[in-house]
């Protein structure tokens, strides 16, 4: 069996080893050159990444608190005087319009003036028999 294996059964392209050696040496030399010029950005890159992550987390936490925190949690309703309330919130309201509306509501007694004749006319138009009304009453 040993005699068979004395010759390698495989072939390689001509000058393969010279070529592949050159290729390997060139590719590893490129990798050295790629790693050599380490600029300030490359050195700071990991720190910048951490800083950016922290900033994003803070921003997200703040936004989440603003959105989801219930009002009762704040515990305090800001106290303001009547004058401040009036100055702040009532400035933009047209007081005259408000007063007109209020007086209209106050003068309405709930029943308009309707005469008996009007009621009888209404019943006739609606074809309602007066006897039916008596029965119901």
């Amino acid at each position, binding site marked *: 069996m040993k005699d068979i294996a004395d010759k390698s059964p495989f072939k390689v392209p001509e000058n393969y*080893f010279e070529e592949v050696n050159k290729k*390997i040496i060139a590719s590893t030399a490129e990798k050295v050159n790629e790693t050599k010029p380490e600029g300030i950005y490359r050195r700071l890159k990991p720190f910048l990444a951490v800083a950016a992550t922290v900033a994003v987390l803070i921003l997200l936490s703040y936004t989440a608190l603003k959105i989801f925190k219930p009002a009762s949690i704040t515990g305090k309703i800001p106290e303001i005087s009547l004058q401040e309330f009036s100055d702040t919130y009532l400035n933009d309201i047209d007081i005259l319009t408000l007063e007109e509306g209020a007086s209209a509501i106050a003068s309405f007694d709930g029943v308009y003036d309707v005469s008996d004749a009007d009621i009888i006319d209404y019943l006739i138009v609606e074809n309602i028999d007066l006897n039916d009304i008596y029965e119901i009453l």
Partner: protein
Amino acid sequence: MGFADQDKEIIELLRKDANRGFRLLVESYSKRLYWHIRRLVILHEDADDALQNTFINAWKKIGEFRNESALYTWLYTIATNESLTLINKRKRYSAVSIDEIGNYLANSVEGSTWFDGDEAQIKLQNAILQLPEKQRIVFNLRYFDEMPYEEMSKVLNTSEGALKASYHHAVKKIEEILGLI
């Protein structure tokens, strides 16, 4: 110059000038590692890929190399792993069974552009290809590279006793396949 002396020279040069040291390492080992890889992956194109990856990985890990193991065994370990990675990739992506891979490799021996063996050599290679993967590596390292069991034990991380038994079984199987017994 023996392997040990040559390794010593390469290591010293690597310390003084990494680029020159690595150049000497590539020139000293490319042929030996190529043939080791080629016998495992069979096709020249695959062997070419695995050889280049072996040296690129060796270059990346050169800082991790300790004198505890010989440069020679360290490089063979990387080359063996690269070959196995390539074989496994081929198994995964071609979606065929291990037996089919064996047949594919066996056919590749005869069909490969870069194969130039006579009939006896084709028979021997086909017989080797019928061995289980680990046994095939053991057989190749011992039979073709004549690697001592002590070194092989470091390359394959297996006890010498297990390697001897594995080689013995491999030889028996091949002789059976070749009809020598």
